[in-house]
């Protein structure tokens, strides 16, 4: 007993600076209260054991901490309120908003009625203490002295040494012919800091990322088929959703992934107000648990088939309701009405106006070099913008509705039955084309080459057909179609539906169905991505006190940026070459150069001038960017010295792409440096983690350079000869992405500095501020310090933190200087603050909300409503992106976009010929047809068609067995066959609430939660759990100057939980048991997981939450496995069919084996 008292006394005495005697006295005065509590949760928790029996009802202890308010810093849609309770410089507790709230369930007109919820945080932010005092905090700059990825090779450096090292590396790569990539940086623990890096590397910048990571397919489609104005469709505001009858959550696990603020509470309110919920999802997920009135168990990647069947029911079985919906009495009127909003849903009739496709001067209709009114991308004809090469009508049987009905029947509104074939091909690397094909360690040919999938052109898309494909009961499909036609249905879509190889077609089809069902532009009858409108309207300029709060998200000091920008000579901006599919940065084009450099230095280089993400290859706005899924492929191609004749015959010599990506084939500048800050996408969130490691560790002996780094004699420039000469990261924790870097700078976490959460994460009517509450550990510095080595490399390091204070070296107030400087930067950045508050006032409350604004911003967007009322009105940019100014269910532009990226778009298989000798026009195929008049080219099948057909995903499953010739999944690579690996199960991941992408995978309070980290017996396990006192310093991080980093981040016998249906079997037919450690293998890699047997996933589906940390080991019985359970180990870098834009988190076949450990397995 006494021992624990003594321990705690000494701890409290140290903290308070008071004597043991006086402390004893004060403790006795509060009686036995401490028997109920630990003495401090920032330090080691010990229960103070006093004599409770002296007083059976002791006075409860008082709450004594100082409270500091703040908000989520990581990549989260929540932006909830988090309060930390601080005592003696240590965070002791974490709470949330507990002020009175208003909600819709209260009696109307009562004080509690309204839309002002408490901003309650979730487990992620509740565990803030566990992040900040975690065992894997980075406290000092570290430099790798051995091979990349070797945790024991990191050596502690001073900030001076780190700066010297970075400067030397900068000079090295600049000399070598620089190519530089900055991956998507979410700002896992802080703001997006790409700005600072890109400031530094503007002089060597080569390429960055096309599309955003989150919504690439939605963005892409918005530009091609027209869904609102060049962005993902905005979902409804909350009170707008109140006007609906039914809510469909389609691929929307929004309570768990926290798509937007307080989503679970809002949805719950709506359900209790009588709204019915339909969940369309492969997993019976957390949102389904307490929301689902109807659960439609769609198999991942078959959504397109479900959509087709819904339309089939509307056309064939509920025509009367369809007429009623459009307020028409006959099919002629129906056709006319539908065509007002949707182009190509029905075939064109002879008396339609001709639909004009422009022929641009450089050959592609979709080339948006001609910029229309209001800077929109409208497609004008030839050079004089008055002449047109050809006019188009949707040919008989070519419309989307003709495809839906198939080859045996013709809709009364159409001119013929479907012209489309039943099978479809792929563009893949042919054998011999690339003898040293990268990306296939086995040296085999591309497994997709010559293979065929299905596209069901002649099949009627009946609900019974769809049932055997999607796993959704036919009658449930009919019921949902009925709801769309008769009720106010509100549809929320989220990102998971994008994560397949056929995402463009499937989401396009879904869009068309929703417009066809009139699910847009009306209060309570709308669709989109929830919360998007809220965040978007922030910049909409609503002039309330809060809305006018504006800031830049870039933490780079403006003055420094300006100076640096002026210094960058145009000549160092590299010419990427338009011939390579990327824009030529023309130094003589002053306007563009200024824009490019501005973009680089202002933190938006990932969208270098790009208005939105569908960026075409010749579009100046796309300046050398690749889709995030392609970038590893791009890096390898860029570094290759071998070239090959262009297989498309349009560009001379090209590089090798792993996946026949013709844009990647144009990679010209060898990528030589990668820098990141808070970027899980560097490795753990990369499209293929093993591929990433291969890229980061690729060497070339001719590149070996053992020159000592000036100022850091124990470090060498490039002793291993890495092809990527420099990998740099600024982070708070030793994450897997950091592990492979050459130099790591330690960053500050939330509450260790000022922070304004990014506006992307805020509702329109909310402004947040996070005040500094505690000091960071060791020598971690605020983000602004990340720019110091940059400044130093440019000769400005000595006086970086301002004229008033001179930098004197690490250990002498550097933190204070950086912190003060950053505060000033923030202060200067605000053009206004909420309600004119001072920074101090704002920081005190942490979050300011405005009820009036909440109500304002949740109305139906006027342009959507206007467009519904008058589809000829495309004012405000609505539907401005399409050629027709309408939603396009038939888009020649889609084909031409694909072709303009140098992809061949002819399916030479005779079985793919179009029926009825139909001729599909696109500019490039017409050129081929003209050159080969005997081949009837325009009658040939295509890789990309102008309609959103259902094409099974590359590595998916159907409800019917694989060997069912009619309904079975085509499995084009025949992975289910034993000789090809026997991959018979489907894998998918999701966004778990306990992590934000790869952030927080090591947080002890989250790891121990049920169904997360488990040991080999299937029991809860407790990794990384020494909670350290920030003031004392974490022992193993408290390195002496010559020490190396001692790893303890990853631990043995800790596995991520995977969910299996009881009927899912091992490859050898045995049952999987609860708690088994299972090897999940794909063509790309293997992970170890702990099996949880559940009815919440379908048979043959394996699911694991994304973001668990990659930890590869070598095992005797299973070879190289990732025991960390990082799902990206299983995925691939091949692009999706059309835009090549999305990662494949739901498009992965796996096989399952029981893990057999061996004493010689790597630990």
């Amino acid at each position: 007993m006494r021992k624990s008292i003594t321990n705690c006394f000494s701890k409290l005495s140290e903290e308070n600076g008071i004597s043991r005697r006086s402390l004893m006295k004060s403790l006795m005065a509060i009686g036995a209260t401490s028997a109920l509590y630990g003495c401090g949760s920032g330090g080691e928790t010990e229960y103070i054991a006093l004599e409770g029996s002296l007083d059976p009802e002791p006075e409860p202890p008082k709450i004594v901490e100082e409270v500091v308010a703040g908000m989520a810093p990581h990549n989260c849609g929540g932006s909830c309120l988090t309060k930390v309770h601080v005592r003696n410089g240590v965070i002791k507790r974490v709470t949330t908003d507990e002020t009175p709230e208003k909600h819709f369930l209260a009696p109307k007109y009562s004080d509690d009625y309204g839309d002002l919820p408490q901003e309650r945080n979730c487990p992620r932010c509740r565990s803030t203490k566990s992040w900040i005092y975690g065992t894997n905090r980075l406290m000092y700059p570290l430099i790798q002295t051995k091979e990349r990825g070797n945790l024991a090779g990191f050596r502690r450096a001073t900030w001076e040494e780190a700066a010297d090292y970075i400067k030397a590396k900068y000079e090295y790569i600049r000399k070598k012919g620089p190519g530089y990539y900055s991956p998507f940086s979410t700002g896992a623990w802080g703001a997006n800091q790409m700005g600072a890096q890109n400031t530094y590397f503007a002089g060597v910048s080569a390429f960055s990322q096309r599309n955003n990571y989150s919504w690439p397919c939605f963005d892409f489609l918005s530009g091609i088929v027209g869904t609102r104005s060049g962005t993902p469709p905005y979902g409804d505001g909350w009170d707008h959703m109140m006007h609906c009858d039914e809510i469909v959550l389609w691929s929307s696990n929004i309570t768990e992934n926290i798509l937007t603020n307080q989503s679970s509470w809002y949805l719950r309110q709506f359900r209790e107000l009588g709204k019915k919920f339909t969940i369309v999802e492969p997993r019976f997920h957390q949102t389904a648990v307490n929301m689902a009135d109807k659960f439609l168990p769609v198999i991942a990647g078959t959504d397109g088939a479900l959509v087709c069947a819904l339309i089939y029911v509307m056309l064939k079985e509920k025509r009367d309701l369809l007429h009623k919906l459009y307020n028409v009495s006959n099919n002629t009127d129906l056709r006319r009405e539908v065509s007002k909003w949707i182009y190509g849903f029905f075939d064109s009739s002879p008396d339609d106006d001709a639909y004009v496709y422009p022929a641009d001067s450089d050959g592609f209709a979709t080339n948006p070099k001609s910029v229309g009114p209001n800077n929109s991308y409208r497609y004008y004809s030839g050079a004089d913008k008055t002449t047109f090469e050809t006019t188009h009508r949707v040919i008989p049987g070519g419309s989307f509705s003709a495809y839906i009905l198939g080859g045996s029947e013709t809709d009364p509104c159409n001119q013929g039955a479907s012209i489309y074939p039943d099978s479809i091909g792929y563009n893949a690397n042919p054998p011999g084309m690339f003898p040293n094909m990268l990306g296939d360690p086995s040296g085999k040919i591309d497994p997709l080459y010559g293979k065929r999938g299905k596209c069901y052109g002649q099949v009627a898309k009946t609900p019974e057909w769809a049932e055997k494909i999607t796993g959704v009961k036919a009658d449930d499909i009919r019921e949902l179609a009925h709801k769309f036609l008769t009720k106010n249905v509100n549809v929320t879509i989220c990102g998971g539906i994008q994560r397949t190889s056929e995402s463009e077609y499937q989401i396009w089809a879904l869009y068309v169905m929703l417009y066809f069902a009139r699910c847009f532009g009306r209060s309570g009858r709308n669709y989109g991505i929830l919360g998007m409108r809220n965040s978007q309207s922030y910049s909409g300029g609503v002039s309330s006190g809060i809305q006018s709060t504006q800031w830049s998200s870039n933490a780079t000091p403006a003055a420094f940026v300006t100076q640096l920008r002026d210094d960058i000579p145009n000549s160092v901006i590299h010419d990427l070459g338009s011939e390579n599919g990327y824009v030529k940065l023309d130094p003589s084009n002053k306007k563009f150069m200024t824009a490019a450099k501005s973009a680089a230095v202002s933190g938006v280089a990932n969208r270098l001038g790009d208005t939105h993400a569908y960026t075409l290859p010749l579009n100046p706005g796309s300046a050398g960017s690749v889709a995030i899924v392609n970038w590893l492929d791009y890096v390898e191609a860029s570094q290759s010295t071998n070239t090959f004749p262009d297989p498309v015959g349009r560009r001379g010599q090209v590089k090798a792409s792993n996946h026949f990506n013709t844009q990647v084939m144009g990679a010209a500048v060898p990528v030589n440096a990668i820098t990141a800050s808070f970027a899980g996408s560097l490795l753990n969130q990369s499209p293929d983690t093993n591929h990433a490691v291969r890229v980061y560790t690729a060497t070339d002996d001719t590149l070996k350079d053992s020159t000592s780094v000036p100022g850091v004699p124990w470090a060498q420039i490039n002793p291993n000869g890495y092809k990527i000469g420099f990998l740099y990261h600024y982070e708070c924790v030793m994450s897997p992405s950091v592990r492979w870097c050459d130099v790591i700078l330690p960053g500050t976490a939330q509450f260790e500095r000022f922070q304004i959460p990014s506006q992307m994460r805020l509702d329109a009517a909310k402004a947040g501020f996070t005040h500094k509450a505690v000091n960071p550990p060791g020598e971690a510095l605020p983000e602004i310090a990340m720019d110091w080595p940059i400044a130093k490399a440019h000769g400005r390091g000595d006086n970086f933190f301002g004229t008033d204070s001179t930098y004197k070296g690490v250990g002498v107030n550097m933190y204070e200087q950086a912190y003060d400087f950053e505060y000033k930067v923030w202060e200067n950045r605000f053009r206004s603050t909420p309600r004119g508050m001072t920074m101090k006032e704002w920081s005190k409350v942490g979050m300011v909300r405005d009820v009036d604004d909440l109500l304002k911003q949740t109305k139906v967007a006027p342009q959507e409503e206007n467009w519904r009322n008058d589809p000829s009105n495309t004012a405000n940019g609505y539907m401005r992106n399409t050629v027709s100014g309408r939603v396009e269910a038939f888009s020649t532009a889609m084909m031409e976009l694909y072709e303009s990226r140098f992809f061949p778009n002819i399916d030479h298989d005779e079985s793919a010929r179009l029926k009825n000798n139909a001729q599909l026009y696109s500019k490039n195929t017409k050129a081929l047809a003209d050159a080969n008049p005997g081949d009837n080219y325009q009658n040939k099948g295509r890789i990309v068609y102008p309609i959103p057909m259902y094409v099974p995903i590359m590595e998916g499953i159907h409800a019917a067995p694989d060997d069912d010739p009619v309904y079975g999944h085509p499995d084009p690579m025949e992975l289910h066959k034993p000789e090809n690996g026997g991959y018979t199960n489907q894998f998918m991941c999701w966004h778990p609430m306990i992590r934000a992408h790869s952030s927080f995978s090591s947080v002890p309070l989250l790891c121990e939660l049920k169904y997360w980290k488990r040991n080999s017996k299937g029991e809860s396990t407790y990794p990384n759990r020494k909670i350290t006192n920030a003031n004392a310093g974490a022992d193993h991080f408290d390195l002496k100057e010559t020490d190396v980093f001692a790893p303890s981040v990853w631990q043995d016998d800790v596995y991520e939980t995977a969910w299996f249906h009881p009927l899912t079997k091992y490859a050898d037919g045995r049952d999987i048991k609860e708690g088994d450690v299972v090897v999940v293998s794909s063509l790309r890699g293997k992970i170890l997981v702990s099996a949880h047997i559940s009815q919440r996933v379908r048979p043959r589906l394996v699911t694991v939450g994304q973001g668990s940390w990659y930890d590869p080991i070598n095992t005797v019985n299973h070879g190289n496995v990732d025991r960390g359970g990082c799902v990206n180990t299983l995925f691939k870098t091949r692009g999706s069919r059309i835009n090549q834009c999305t990662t494949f988190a739901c498009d992965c076949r796996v096989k399952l084996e029981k893990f057999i450990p061996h004493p010689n397995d790597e630990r």
Partner: protein
Amino acid sequence: MHSETNQFAFYFDQNRCHGCQTCVVACKDWNGVNPGPAKWREIHDVEVGDYPTPENNWANLEVFIAVYSCMHCENPACVDACVYKAIYKRQSDGIVIIDRNKCQGLGACIRACPYSAPKVADDAQEVPTLPKGSFTNGHAAQKCNFCIDRVYHEPEPGKPKLKPTCVGACLTRALDFGTLQELKAKYPDAVSIADGTVPGFPADNKGSDGRTLAKRTNPSILVKLRNK
């Protein structure tokens, strides 16, 4: 004597809970319970039915979540089970308290409690407080105390007193706190879990070791049944 008018109790809406475990984390955080096996609140779930497929005739699936800590029972079995009299029930509000000073770590309370509410840490979670032996791992038992500081003190001068941290944390507002009398009045359709028919909640007549208890414990919690 405590009675319905002064017995503190939980309310749990099984319709609202989706199993996010925010309350579990909030509980540990507020009460300074380090990561490790001692968890004052835990989630339990019961799957009823099957994942719908044609093979099972499109079965319906329902998931019942139960998240609970100590129920501060009317007749706490833990109190009777402890030979060292280390557990007592406060007269004024019915909160059941473990006096860790007296606890000898035998674990009888855990076995007697139908809900296994008392927990024992390991050495990495807290410094051992007891000698280790054949009956003890060196750690006194610990459990929920209804966040007694929150319910009795203003968090800041002038601010209203707070409910237990789990209640304030719940994302879907599935939890509430008050006296039994208050909760019964506020949630007239809520029921007792004592008979063990509410999925996820064990009956109150058997200890977690399966032995029948001398007295039913009558837990201080009201539950709104799913879909009711």
